[in-house]
């Protein structure tokens, strides 16, 4: 009995300790984004929203925010679309070398972003292609396509084949089958793939850093803010990004995954 109690005390102590470790930096980040003063470190001088005002007044930061959204959306749409088509072809048709094709499509997942970025950068330089948000988009599709393909391919169970066959017997061509039958059946994993891509692209730094020039994405702009050292404005934009991500996560948890759980 005593042993059980001490074991459970130990468990809860450990839990509290690790949660404290996990939340410490985020708590500090958010708390000192409200700092009334120039340094985001203790002591806390009082509550102020001045740094949030500074964030919204910062043209460059707001432009980077917009760029990030555009890049995330465009690259994710392309990734999901290409990934879905490839998954459909490889799961539903017998193609020669399909194992090799799957391997090739997954391969970029095993390579560091830095190396993918460096490869693309050397190629763009060699071909004299100017760096822009477009090249960032290309890079983000390279990293997100394997992910989208793997997620959608994994969810293409064989039990869906008969429903698709029925649709085909009723005269639907492949595009109709995909758009009206397969995609709706796989919607949870398609959406999961899409939102994961958006998150990854939104947060990605090294590819966006190496493949962009004048217009940059938000992580790159935050990176250049770090040069000024500890700054409550960086806390403010960091807190905003964090809250936005948590809001998206909550929305997904409540709508998407809540629904699949019930089914």
């Amino acid at each position, binding site marked *: 009995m005593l042993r059980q109690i001490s074991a*459970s005390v130990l468990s809860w102590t*450990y*839990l509290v300790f*690790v*949660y404290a*470790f*996990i939340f*410490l*930096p985020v708590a*500090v*980040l958010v708390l000192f984004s409200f700092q009334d003063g120039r340094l*985001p*470190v*203790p002591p806390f001088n009082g509550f102020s929203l001045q740094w949030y005002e500074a964030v919204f007044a910062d043209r460059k930061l707001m432009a980077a925010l917009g760029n990030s959204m555009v890049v995330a959306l465009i690259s994710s749409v392309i990734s999901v679309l*290409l990934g879905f*088509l*490839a998954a*459909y*072809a*490889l799961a539903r*048709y017998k*193609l020669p070398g399909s194992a090799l*094709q799957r391997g*090739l*499509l997954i*391969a*970029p997942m095993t*390579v*560091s972003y*830095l*190396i*993918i970025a*460096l*490869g*693309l*950068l*050397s*190629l763009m330089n060699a071909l004299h292609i100017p760096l822009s948000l477009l090249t960032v988009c290309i*890079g983000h*599709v390279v990293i997100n*396509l394997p992910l989208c393909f793997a997620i959608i*391919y*994994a969810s293409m*169970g064989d039990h869906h084949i008969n429903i698709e066959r029925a649709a085909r017997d009723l005269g639907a061509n*492949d595009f109709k089958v995909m758009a009206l039958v397969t995609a709706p059946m796989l919607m949870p994993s398609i959406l999961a793939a899409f939102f994961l891509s958006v998150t990854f692209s939104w947060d*990605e*730094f090294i590819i966006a850093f*190496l493949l962009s020039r004048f217009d940059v994405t*938000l*992580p790159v702009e*935050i*990176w250049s803010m*770090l040069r000024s050292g*500890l700054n409550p404005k960086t*806390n403010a*934009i*960091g807190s905003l990004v*964090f809250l936005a*991500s948590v809001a998206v*996560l909550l929305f997904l948890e409540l709508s998407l995954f809540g629904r699949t759980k019930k089914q």
Partner: protein
Amino acid sequence: MADAGTLTSATALEDADRRKAWGFVAPALLWTIAFFVVPFAFMGAMSLWKREGRDLVRVWNLDNYARFFSENALFQGLVNSLEITVIVTVISVLLAYPLAWIIAERVPKRLQRMALILAILPFWTSYVVRSYSWLLVLSKNGVINQLFMNVGLISEPLQLASTRTATVIGFVHFFVMLLTLTIYSNLIQLSPNYRRAAADLGANAFQTFWHVVLPLTLPGIMTGAFLTFVLCIGDYVTPQILGGNNELVLPQIIMLQLGRRADFPMAAALSIVLMLAVTVAYLACARWLKIERA
């Protein structure tokens, strides 16, 4: 005759099907080839060129690799990377496993999902910002130093930021969340019957864990550990922000080649070395890693 007719039409249909299927898979394949395989091959080729003064010498040679092994500053980057990555992977697994176990076993069922979401919530802070926020905690006038000084534990601020320890802390923070997720999902899939059987056969709690639960969750641990290794060894941001300019890791050295010296061939050669390190790690974990279709 009729048989032959249906046969040809069947193969004709198959041919048409196959052409269509190629059409569907082609965009993804072409994208991967054009923007991943080709650049990668180009980089491999470039690692065999070299930079002399301001010119690129396009003659096959192994000078970059020879320099990597002979110049201590370059080789030490790989050593630092490997050391940090192994330390981070081990500490992260050791911290995350008990956490995942407690959430799976001790936390009431209806609260588990909540506990898990909470455990990985800071995962969603922006990647660059996450390292920056550790700077707030670890810097000279940061939270820890001020706390310790106020309590009277220390009189001079400790050098916590711009050290290897800071890099390790930043990494561990990130990977504990990731590993908790993979290990938890592995633990939760274990049928309680295994444990019951072990208990019936007279195993105590520790023996059950050591001989039954742990081996069964090894695939989850290895998947997470491999992921940790790959992401950790290739990361530039965390060591750059938290480790500063001491004990540079390989990605920092690669970026140095790009920046000041514009030595692309050397950067390419170092990237190939980085790739090889990841490949070795993959081969070591390969039998536990699987990608399957449901």
